[in-house]
Structures are given as C-alpha cells and as structure tokens.
C-alpha cells in the first residue's frame, strides 16, 4: 500500500522543471491566442442567427450568470468586450504578467466564447482539451519562469538586497510543477480512449473492415471537397491498414505516459495522424498537436537526436556598479536574456580585486563612470560600446544590433548613454552595515 502510494505521489508530485511548465504555458497560450482564438466575426454572426436555434449549454449558462441571469443570450457588446478581454489576458499570460490571474481570465473568456459558439445545436471536439489545459495551467506555478513576473521578482529582490540576485538557474524544480502536466497527459489518454472505445462499442471489429473508413473518407471528401480523401478511398488495403493503426493508437495512448521510451513515437504518430486526418478529411484537430507539449519533459530528456552543442567557454565579463539601482536592474534583465550563459558579472564595489585583475588600468572613477565589458579576447569596452558588445553576445538582443550599428550610432549612442548614466542614483553606504 505504502509503495503504491509513494509511486502515485512520485507520478504526480516528483519535482519537475519549472522551465518545462513555462514552455507549456507559452506554447499553449501562444497557440490559443494566435491560431485558435474564436473569431469575433463569427461570434457576432451567431448573434444574427434565428433565436429559435439558440440553445445555451450549461457551461455558457453558468458563465453568463453575472451578465444577467440563467440562460440569457449575450449581446454584441458583451461578446465584443469579452473577446478583447481574451486578447489582453492572452498577451499578459503569454508574457507572464500577473500570470495566474491573466491565465484564469484567458481560460474563462475562451471557454465562454467557445461555449457560446456551441449553443446553436452543434458541438465539436477540437477545443475541449485545450480549454481544460488552460484552466489547469492557471492553477499551477506557470509564471515562475520565463515571465515578466519572474523578472519583476528578481529585480525586486536585487533592489531589496542591494545586490544583483544570483540567477534562478536552468534547473529550477518544484513539486507543484508536475501535476498540471500529468492532468493534461491523462486528459489526452481519456479523449483518445473515448474515441477508440466508441468505435469498439458501435462497430466492434467491423470498424477495421476498411469500408467504414472508406465511407468517412467519401463523406468528408464530397461534403468538404477533399480530392485527397476521395483518392485514398480508392485504396482499400491502405485504408484498412490506417484503420488498424488509428484504433490501436487511440486505445493504447496511455503507454505514452507509462512507458517514457515510447513517448516520442506516440507524439510523432499522433501528429502525423492529425495532419493526415486534416489533409484527407479536413477535420481540424491541430490543437492536439500543440497539447502534446505537455510531454515536454520526456521529449526533452529522451530526445532521439542530440541537438545541443557543447556550451561555449567564451565569456563576456560585465563590470558594473553594485551600488547603482539602475545598474543592478539592468544586470538582472541582461542575465535573464542571456540564455547561453555567456555573461559573467563583477560588482566592482564589492569585488574590486577581481575587477582590477580583469582590467589592470582600472580606476574607481572610471568604473563608476560607466559600465565596462571585457570580451573573451581581452578587449575592454565602456558605456554604450560595452552595451553593444553585450548585445552581440546575447542572441535575444540581436534584433537591436542594427540600431546600435546604424549611421551616427557611434555619436548618438554614447550621448544617450551619458544622459541616462548621469541621472542614475547611487546608494552610497554611510555605515558598514549596509554594504556587505
């Protein structure tokens, strides 16, 4: 009993990477925001349909309660406002600003808009798992990494301690990072199992006779005008083989979780099946391909091809003023953007010896005047040029490089840097207790 309980606890609560959870948030929110967000035009078009067709589903009735009562039909103003709220909360959730709150808002608005679309007699399947995944993520620590919330909390900690806070590291783990991924994974298992079970209950072995899938290929081929589906319908052996593969995949998807070495195979096969279903039947289940990101940990740790290159030993060392709030904030953000960990930092106020060893002719006055960067080949850059050297080392800053190398940048850049630097404040200690 204890062993089973421990195994169960490990399955749901073994420490997992907060980075993985953040990746899932970014992929799912990004996909829902940019690809699958319900169209406002269609929402408004639905309002123009015959009132006799409006049969609100319970989810919609519950969610519309605050807007006027049980079973009401929303008006254009409410739907438009909710749609814009969905976009705003989606952007905030993607960037990780007030992540939980914004993700809750994003999940709620999407649920309401989709439930509204499904209150006119027809309900479809593609969005359900994605919507449930968004709700589950909203209750998890998805904003702990790769979020504005994280930058803000690190800046706050740095300002509070008066020091550039050490980075969280790429291996930040949490006992609460695994369960949301497990819920999404098991949801996929239940959904696929339901599809397979329905086939067994309705058709039994007849579902594998080839004619069943042929019928559906002809049905969607003619109804939706898909020549590829009609072409496939002419190949009975291929159709029979595909029937077997599809049913086996649906009924056995749990192995994608239970046997991690099979995860890549299931995810790849699932993606191919969904793409194939689109090309031959135009049934759009692309959400599922995105939802597979819930297997990110297994996909990352058991990748069949090693893509990672050895970490570079070349480092750029930033010599900064640890008593200047703006400098500390800048270091936090630079450190955050430095995915390849190419930057090293030296607070010359606290580690003068290290700074002086790096730059032999360094004076305290020069160090306090502007940020300094020592490149891997030993060259020293100062102020604007130091910042430009850092931008070259950090790929996420490459988009601003054209600006830094534009005509007149060599004149305007140092001037702008000087303007900002001259206005920064320094927290100079008057007692020995505030500087450690």
């Amino acid at each position, binding site marked *: 009993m204890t062993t089973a309980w421990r195994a169960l606890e490990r399955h749901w609560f073994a420490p997992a990477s907060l980075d993985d959870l953040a990746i899932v948030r970014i992929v799912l929110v990004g996909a829902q925001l940019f690809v699958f967000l319900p169209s406002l035009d269609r929402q408004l078009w639905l309002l123009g349909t015959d009132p006799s067709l409006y049969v609100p589903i319970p989810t919609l009735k519950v969610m519309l309660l605050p807007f006027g009562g049980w079973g009401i039909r929303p008006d254009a103003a409410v739907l438009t406002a909710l749609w814009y709220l969905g976009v705003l909360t989606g952007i905030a959730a993607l960037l990780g600003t007030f992540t939980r709150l914004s993700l809750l808002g994003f999940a709620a608005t999407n649920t309401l808009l989709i439930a509204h679309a499904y209150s006119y007699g027809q309900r479809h399947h593609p969005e359900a798992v994605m919507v449930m995944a968004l709700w589950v993520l909203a209750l998890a620590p998805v904003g702990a990494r790769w979020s504005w919330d994280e930058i803000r909390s690190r800046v706050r900690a740095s300002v509070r301690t008066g020091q550039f806070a050490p980075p969280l590291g790429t291996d930040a783990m949490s006992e609460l990072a695994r369960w949301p991924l497990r819920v999404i994974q098991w949801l996929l298992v239940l959904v696929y199992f339901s599809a397979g079970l*329905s086939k067994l209950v309705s058709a039994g072995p007849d579902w594998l006779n080839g004619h069943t899938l042929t019928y559906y290929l002809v049905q969607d081929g003619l109804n939706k005008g898909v020549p590829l589906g009609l072409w496939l319908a002419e190949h009975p052996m291929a159709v029979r083989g595909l029937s077997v593969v599809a049913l086996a995949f649906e009924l056995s998807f749990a192995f994608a979780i239970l046997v991690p070495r099979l995860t890549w195979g299931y995810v790849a096969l699932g993606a191919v099946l969904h793409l194939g279903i689109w090309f031959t039947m135009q049934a759009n289940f692309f959400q599922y391909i995105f939802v597979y990101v819930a297997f990110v940990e297994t996909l990352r740790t058991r990748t069949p091809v090693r893509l990672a290159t050895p970490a570079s030993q070349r480092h750029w060392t930033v010599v900064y003023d640890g008593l200047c709030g703006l400098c500390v904030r800048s270091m936090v953000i630079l450190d955050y953007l430095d995915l390849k960990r190419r930057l090293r930092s030296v607070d010359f106020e606290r580690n003068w010896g290290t700074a002086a060893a790096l730059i032999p002719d360094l004076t305290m006055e020069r160090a306090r005047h502007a940020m300094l960067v020592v490149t891997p080949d030993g060259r020293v850059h100062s102020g604007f040029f130091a910042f430009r050297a850092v931008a070259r080392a950090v790929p996420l800053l490459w988009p601003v490089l054209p600006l830094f190398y534009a005509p007149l940048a060599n004149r305007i850049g140092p001037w702008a840097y000087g303007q900002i630097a001259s206005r920064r404040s320094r927290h100079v200690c008057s007692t020995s207790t505030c500087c450690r």
Partner: protein
Amino acid sequence: MRNSKALQKAGAVVVSALVLGLQLWAIVPRGHAMDWYWPFMDYPMYSRPHFAGETFRQHDLRLVPCRGGSGRERVQAWQLGVEPFMMIGLLRDLDTAAAHRRLTRDSAETLLGHLVSNRWPGSYCTAQLWQRGVVIGAPGPVPVDPLWQVIHTWPIPQRPER
C-alpha cells in the same frame, strides 16, 4: 511553509480528480451523445460501422424563386444562419423521413422553410432536396462529382404581409 505546500498539493489532488473524474464520467458509453456538458464530452465521431455496397448520400438544398423560371439556387448553411453540420443533419433527416414517410419530415421541412422565409421574405416559394450518392466498395475510382437528382420538393410558407 510545510503546511502551505501540503495544502497546495491537496488542492492539486482535488483539481486533478475533478477534471479527470468529470472527463471519465463523460466518456462512459451510454448510447447517446455526451456533449451537453462541454468541455467534458465523449468522442464518438466516425465510429458507426459501414459495409461494402452501402451508399453514402450527399444532400443539397435548392430553392425555386417565386417569380418563376427554371433557375434553382443552391443554399449554403451560412446563408441560412445555421452550422454546416446542422444543415447536413437536417437534410439527412429530411431524406430519411421522405423515404420512410415519417413525421419528423415535418419538423425539418418547417424549420428550413422558416429559415428561408425569414432570410429572403417572399423570394422563394418552393424548396427542393437534391441528392447524389457513392456506393462504398464499388470497383473503380470514386467519382469526384457524381450526378445530382431531386428527391423531394415542398412549398415554403410565406410570411404574412405586415
């Protein structure tokens, strides 16, 4: 701190059990669709069996203008303000009812007539159900554009003048 973590874990257990439990409840086979409680729903699409020799039938709604003439206009679902799948279902019901002379024909006929007369008052007086079919498992290539034929005609009730 320890208590807070335990509380958070307990919350996670409750949420996980609720979400997966509701989904599990929705997928239990019952003989009828379980999509009313969306997003918790079953996935029975494409599950009914079909056999060689069976005919897939595709339907079309066409309207005859009141002004006369031989022109018949095809109507798409969006023009009537209904979902494409709903339109397919209505036309299939109409075909089945017409074939078996069942009463349900009346409801599909009435609803479609109501939608047409609401959308284009006084423009169309007759509706026609057209059909084309493909025999499953028949040798040779699947026809990409089989011939259409009219299988049922009914009058569209006109809305009273205001």
